[in-house]
């Protein structure tokens, strides 16, 4: 290692330590400092990874897909350098690499696994020269920060066609027309994954769907099946471009069975064979995440049995479908955290929630901080109508709590069931304490006649609200006895 870079690494580490002392987050501060000292640090440190790197980007599911890929690659026996906490801009990736770098300069890991923010993909790929790039989906999200979808698609197209992105193995979602086209517009090998299950097809395209025009000729696509947002089976009636097929499409999910907010099962077909997958994560969106991780692993030539083992072991990523038991003065209660941050993601969470029978207790938390998007319009694109008639109580919290309450009212939820308490701690306390009366025979009474367990409280936070919620839970850990686990 050059003494110059070594000194910069030391200095950047000191910055990180200082940031921690001052109560700041250590996830990206040291990396940012390092990049100021050494703009090519990601390239320099990444080059030390014996087996190179793979990168994952998508609007929804980056963190969960990367966690699933990590589970598979760990089952394969690989030592990973992975930004698992989800710090996915250049600073976060540089921090992860810095943390893995030993004092003598060697790196503690063989393979880099990085989720990357949509707008940072080009810069990270340029430095990292990844072996593989996995692109999962592209949906309408935080228009005030990301801009129009077509703009991101164009940037990604350039990233995979030019420079160091051109040499990477490309793994794409065949069901997303915006992404499938990126494979056609480029030389080199592409592996596609997709869902094939007619029973999942929706009646029509969701309101928030975006990719309606053929990128090639501008005509409107015809969809034979819509699974999620604009993901599905499509063709262009004008120029004939359509969803990729075999042999490029080689990793497929069929026979998908969604089991409420708890789990999902599907049959995974790969070139190496077919296997049954039982996921401890709910919803079609997590089936897509698992399929994406399986496709990436297939591209890296991981054997099928390792893919199966890795997916079965995968648990909820940070704040995504986590389940926490909270010791409240009224007795313990389960809190299930379902991150919602854009219309398509929210729709999938709402669809999954609607699979659970009965009326639910909800805590919706809408923040409008920069990381959430300052513009809260998106809640009007999400189908909260799915909750009408399915809510016992809903508490609205966060900086734009009242706007969420209005959205729910206009979605058809009785105003009498809606409360507003912007302050999160107070809202959480009130929502936990407000439990349905459980007359005998209702609820899950244990055999010894103890008090029946209250139904779970579902928290639907935006990104910064999820961080704040986890912060609250961590602060109270000594008394509330938090237990983090995936949904059972």
């Amino acid at each position: 290692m050059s003494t110059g870079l070594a000194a910069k690494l030391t200095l950047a580490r000191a910055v990180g330590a200082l940031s921690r002392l001052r109560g700041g987050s250590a996830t990206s501060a040291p990396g940012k400092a390092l990049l100021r000292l050494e703009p090519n640090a990601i390239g320099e440190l990444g080059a030390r990874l014996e087996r190179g790197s793979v990168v994952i980007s998508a609007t929804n599911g980056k963190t969960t897909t990367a966690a699933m890929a990590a589970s598979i690659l760990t089952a394969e026996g690989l030592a990973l350098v992975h930004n698992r906490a989800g710090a996915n801009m250049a600073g976060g990736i540089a921090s992860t690499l810095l943390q893995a770098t030993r004092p003598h300069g060697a790196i503690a890991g063989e393979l880099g696994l990085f989720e990357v923010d949509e707008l940072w993909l080009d810069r990270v790929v340029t430095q990292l020269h990844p072996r593989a790039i996995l692109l999962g989906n592209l949906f309408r999200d935080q228009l005030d920060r990301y801009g129009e979808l077509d703009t991101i698609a164009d940037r990604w197209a350039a990233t995979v066609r030019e420079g160091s992105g051109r040499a990477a193995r490309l793994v794409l979602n065949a069901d997303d027309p915006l992404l499938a086209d990126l494979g056609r517009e480029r030389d080199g090998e592409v592996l596609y994954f997709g869902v094939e299950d007619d029973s999942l097809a929706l009646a029509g395209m969701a309101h928030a769907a975006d990719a309606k025009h053929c990128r090639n000729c501008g005509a409107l696509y015809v969809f034979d099946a819509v699974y999620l947002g604009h993901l599905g089976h499509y063709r262009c009636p004008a120029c004939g471009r359509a969803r990729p097929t075999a042999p490029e499409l080689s990793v497929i999910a069929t026979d998908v069975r969604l089991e409420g907010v708890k789990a999902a099962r599907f049959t995974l077909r790969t070139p190496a064979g077919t296997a049954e997958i039982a996921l401890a994560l709910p919803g079609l969106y997590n089936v897509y995440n698992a399929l994406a991780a399986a496709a990436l692993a297939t591209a890296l030539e991981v054997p099928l049995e390792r893919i199966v083992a890795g997916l079965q072991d995968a648990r909820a990523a940070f704040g995504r479908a986590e389940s926490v038991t909270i010791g409240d003065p009224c007795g313990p209660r389960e809190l299930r955290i379902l991150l919602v941050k854009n219309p398509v993601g929210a729709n999938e969470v709402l669809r999954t929630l609607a699979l659970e029978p009965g009326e639910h207790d909800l805590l919706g938390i809408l923040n409008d901080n920069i990381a959430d998007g300052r513009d809260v319009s998106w809640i009007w694109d999400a189908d909260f109508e799915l909750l009408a008639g399915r809510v016992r109580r809903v508490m609205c919290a966060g900086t734009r709590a009242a706007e969420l309450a209005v959205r729910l009212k206009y979605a058809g939820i009785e105003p009498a069931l809606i409360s507003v308490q912007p302050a999160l701690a107070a809202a959480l306390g009130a929502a936990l304490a407000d439990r349905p009366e459980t007359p005998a025979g209702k609820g899950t009474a244990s055999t010894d006649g103890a008090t029946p367990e209250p139904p779970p409280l579902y928290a639907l936070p935006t990104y910064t609200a999820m961080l704040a919620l986890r912060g609250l839970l961590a602060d109270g850990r000594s008394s509330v006895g938090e237990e983090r686990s995936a949904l059972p």
Partner: protein
Amino acid sequence: VSSARASALPPGRTLRICALYPDLMNIYADRGNLLVLERRCAWRGIAFELTACGLGESLDGDAHDFYYLGGGQDRDQRLCAEDLMRFKHTGLHAAAARGAVVLGVCGGYQLLGRSYELGPDEELPGVGLLDVSTVRADGPRLIGNVAIEVCVDGPADKAGEGGQARVLAGFENHGGRTQLSSEQRSLGRVLKGRGNDGQSGFEGARSGNVIGTYLHGPLLPKNVWFADWLVATALGIATAELAPLEDSLETQAHRDARRAAGI
């Protein structure tokens, strides 16, 4: 929710809305605007009829009380600009001439103007109901929370002269800068935010019942008083003739939107 005053409305009254390109021009949750109109009519016993008018369909300028055009990505806006001129130009002018409400939000506002210059070699034609022209500038997009002061029943730009000034709060996100002709009234005065071009201090445009604005977020859930004014205007009655509704959540959301903008 009905009250004695609701009976002031002729029985069987229907608000007939025509949404232009609801599948394409909907980028900033424009559906929320239509939903607010629909629910508030339902709560008051006013029938609500929503008709979509898409690509290639001609628009009937006599059949509806209220025409709505939302925002879209550049690609969608190009498609719609051409289609508007071919299939809907005459109908929209007829509708405006007989006093129907025409509301354009964001991209829809731009297309109600005379023209939208996307770049040095590309200019989209506009319907020309508002005497404004828009140019996509090199500078950054104008993005953020915004609050404006409008005077719907008096001179639009002059609060306090013959009408009560009220606040609209929302979010703006536009690359285009819109210039008003010297004859064209704005919708209101910018209190916080950027407005038409980030410089003039004015936002939106209004000619009779034709209104264009950059405020989305969406506009009407954050400003239900304006939704009611639009409903009344489209029905040709005074806002006071509408039955009052229980609006405590809406009032709080409006206050939060104003606070987000800084007032």
